[in-house]
């Protein structure tokens, strides 16, 4: 253990010798430590303000030196101080690296155990699909519009060119609100059978140009089973402006289909019938499972029933009669509308075999969509 000697001789050679002694003592002491605790002891011994070696050097060498030698001794003490500080720092670096290696070993965890999961909620596949579809059209410049789920006969049928007593109404299996018989037909309330009434509401509110996409819940008097549900969801779209053509309808929906199902998907259109569009067209996409070949690994493709095509949506050019209900000039404006079933698309996309799963809140089902 190094003890600061009292100096009698303040000559250069004597100071050299004393410094040499101190340095060798420092070296051997710092070499001897093995832990951070040891190091703290070492540090305090050499550097503590009270009775540390450096403090003592100050007292016993510098203060004790005769005035003429003070300058020389001061320099020496400063040099030594610097060396001590360096050596103590170096000692810490040495012990802390060796000590932490062993401590880290003790602190080792089994990294193969599962992480502490924070439970995150899962988007419902229907809402997720609906939002995806809406997102595609928003990116194409469509604004979202919404409308009431309980509608009047006027908005759900009449203004969409379903005249009273028309057989086209039969296809809609309407759920009626009770106690409406006393009212004129057009004011009678019902659960909307499609999101199309929002087209009328939107056109009533604003003149062309109009571009809207309408997500929403609709109802029909269908008995629930694996493929039917009285509740389902639709996304509707409408674009009206000057110079909107059937070619534009095709191009827009082709682009949307590629955004929804992948850029390699092809589309085709064939005539259909909706009272509120004319011409009306159903759109099919090439099967995204078998690529349109109808066969999958030598087997019949179940997705498209081997046809290579899947029906996705209905569409058409807005019927001029509809414009009559909203005061648009059919000679000046034209446009298209389209609508698709969200359940159907989600069922196709995820291969779901029972539509009822959507409405049961079964967490075993929902968690598959994490």
């Amino acid at each position, binding site marked *: 253990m190094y003890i600061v000697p009292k100096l009698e001789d303040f000559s250069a050679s004597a100071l050299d010798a004393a410094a040499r002694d101190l340095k060798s003592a420092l070296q051997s002491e710092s070499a001897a430590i093995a832990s951070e605790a040891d190091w703290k002891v070492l540090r305090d011994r050499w550097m503590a303000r009270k009775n540390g070696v450096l403090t003592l050097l100050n007292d016993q060498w510098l203060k004790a030196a005769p005035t003429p030698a003070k300058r020389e001794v001061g320099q020496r003490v400063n040099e030594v101080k610097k060396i001590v500080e360096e050596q103590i720092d170096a000692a810490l670096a040495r012990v802390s690296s060796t000590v932490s290696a062993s401590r880290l070993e003790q602190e080792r965890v089994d990294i193969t155990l599962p992480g502490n*999961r924070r439970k995150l909620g899962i988007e419902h596949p229907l809402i997720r699909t609906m939002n995806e579809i809406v997102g595609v059209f928003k990116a194409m410049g469509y604004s979202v519009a919404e409308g009431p789920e309980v509608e009047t006969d006027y908005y759900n049928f009449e203004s969409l060119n379903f005249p009273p007593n028309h057989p086209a109404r039969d296809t809609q299996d309407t759920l009626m609100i009770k106690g409406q018989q006393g009212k004129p037909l057009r004011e009678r309330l019902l659960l909307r059978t499609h999101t199309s009434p929002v087209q009328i509401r939107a056109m009533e509110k604003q003149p062309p140009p109009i571009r809207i996409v309408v997500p929403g*819940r609709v109802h029909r008097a269908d008995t629930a089973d694996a493929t039917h549900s009285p*509740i389902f969801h639709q996304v509707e779209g409408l674009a009206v402006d000057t110079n909107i053509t059937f070619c534009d309808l095709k191009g827009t929906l082709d682009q949307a289909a590629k955004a929804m199902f992948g850029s390699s998907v092809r589309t085709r259109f064939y005539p259909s019938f909706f009272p509120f569009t004319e011409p009306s067209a159903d759109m099919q996409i090439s099967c995204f499972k078998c690529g349109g070949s109808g066969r999958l690994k030598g087997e019949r493709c179940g997705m498209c029933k081997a046809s290579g095509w899947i029906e996705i949506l209905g569409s058409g050019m807005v019927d001029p009669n509809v414009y009559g209900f909203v005061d648009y000039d059919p000679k000046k404006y034209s446009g298209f509308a389209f609508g698709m079933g969200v359940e159907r698309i989600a069922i196709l996309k995820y291969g779901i075999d029972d539509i009822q799963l959507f409405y049961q809140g079964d967490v075993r089902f929902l968690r598959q969509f994490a």
Partner: protein
Amino acid sequence: MRISPTWLREFVALDVDNVRLAEDLTHAGIAVEGFIGEGDAVLFEMEITTNRVDAMNHYGVARECSAIYNLELQPIIPKLPKLIQPESFPIEILDPALCARYTARAIRDVRIEKAPRYIAERLLIEAHHGINNVADSTNYALMEMGHPTHAFDLDLLEGGKIVVRPAVHGEKLKTLDGIERQLHPGDLVIADAVKPVALAGIMGGWDTMITPNTRNILIESAWFDPATVRRTARRHSMHTDASHRFERGADWGATTLACDRVTELVLETAGGKLAGYNDAVARKVSHEPIQLERSELRRILGQEIPEPDVTRILRRLGFELTETRASSNGAPEEGVRLALLQPPDAYTVEIPSWRMDVEREIDVIEEVARVYGFNNFANTLPSFSGGVVELPHALPESKTRTRLLALGYDEAVSPTFISTDDAQRFSSSEAVALENPLSEEAPLLRNSLVPGMLNLLAWNFNREATDVRLFEMGNVFSMSSERVEQRKLACFAATGSVGEKGVQLPSRSTDFFDLKGDAEAILNTFEKQSLQFTTPASGYFHPGRSATVVLNGETVGELGQLHPDLAAERKFKQEVWIAQLDLDRLFAVPLREPRYQRLSRYPSVERDFSLLLDNHVSYERLRTAIEGLRIPELESIEPQELFRGAGVPEGKYSLLLHLVFQSSERTLRDDEVSGWSRQVIAAVQGLGGSLRG
């Protein structure tokens, strides 16, 4: 409906195979949904849209083929012997609006027996097994050319005449299906001089039907008003091949042809001789010619269709075209001749009687487009003016949903319909009832999301899933002065343990404060001046563990534990925590705008107070009392430990309160903080509390 391609080929000389034919028809809007059988016997299962009643028969589909492939269509020309001594057979049509035309033929001395094979086989296409040669002849003609006809036993028609009239109150008619029907004055009937003998356009009468004893018959081929047929059919819950066609508009021009065709088949299969004929025309049913502008074709379709295609398609479909050109007043001869080389500007289009669905220019445009082929049009994108506008509630809705997901609630979608009991129990609003509910158990539209949520939880409990967190955002409905009011709500429910389980994680059951914290996390998204949780909440909650949520002075929801009685009723074996927020009200509050405050450069001072308080002193009162001191440097108040039991007197609780003081302008002095601490203690004492020893 089914179509035999072999039969089609009798009308058009098709040179495509059946698979290709089915595809081409489908692409022209005459959808072949599937094949039945194979080879020459293959049948097409058709899905004809309701507007195309003209294509619900073989001849109509053949006409489509003729347009698609530009082939000649063989006409149907019945060959009948000359009527030598016509008997008079009067037909009276009382209301021309309801029956526009009634054509009839009388045939005497028929032999009623089984129809020959060539007829029976064709009826099998629709799986009809045949009745007798006369009835089968009418059905054959229906499948062939689509016009419904009916045959009466002439000898059973009294008074020697046919009257087409509305039914008289109290009249009855037993129809061919053996059902005796009470007629309504709105029903249109065919009657003889005495009694109704058929429900017009729907079904014949039992008493005048063809039997093996029938010798003389009357064949009816008429045109009835679609709406009248539809109303009558609905009223009697009937739907027949005939009503299906009349409702959609039959071919006014085809009554004589259909009558003759059935007559020809009867003479062929049942013998007999022509005895009488009457074609009573009450009014003509036709559409005015339509002006089709070529520029309109282009404006709607977006692409030029070659002139020869336009005329070929329309003519093959039976439309007659006259070209019209813009008159060039005083133009020299030369100019006229040159103009003739150009396509016309427009056509005057005569509509065939079988196309009741074609009334306007756009209908003609559709005819051209569909036969031309939708897939022969280019895909283009429209140019648009105008920008995208977000719905005002889009952002708050998306934030609320994202927070609920982040808080660990799975999203659910529950049915719209609830029971009467649930509607009364979970909401005070008047529920909206359905006229024709799908089930008697759920005849109402939901007026709360809670019952639906409880059903979803029950579903999970019954499947051994006990740790469940679900939310739903959806509309509820209520009746308010004859109007249906729709509100958007969010409901979220938590039950079972909090968070995920794991070797590192202690498991703990969900409690009130978990639910409250989640509600606070959602409400914190909004600009909040005040947020209070008050009592009482609705009766379906546990009275001691529920609260009404008041944001900025307005009630925005409720939360708490489902009342144990209701839980027991539903056989829930665990506590269920449920919250419902009124999103319409919540979204009226603006979203919270983040505000920056400079961070203090001076240290904060923390003080802990161990307090003893009476049970009736709520934390809210304590906090309000301390905040009431208005110490600007009081940075935060936080309850840290709450304890009742050993060491704490009965009726009291001990609370460790953690206060932080800080100034943004200076370092706080010890004596200042001590002064505030004394004020805090005095406030506590004011509530009857004390500092614990």
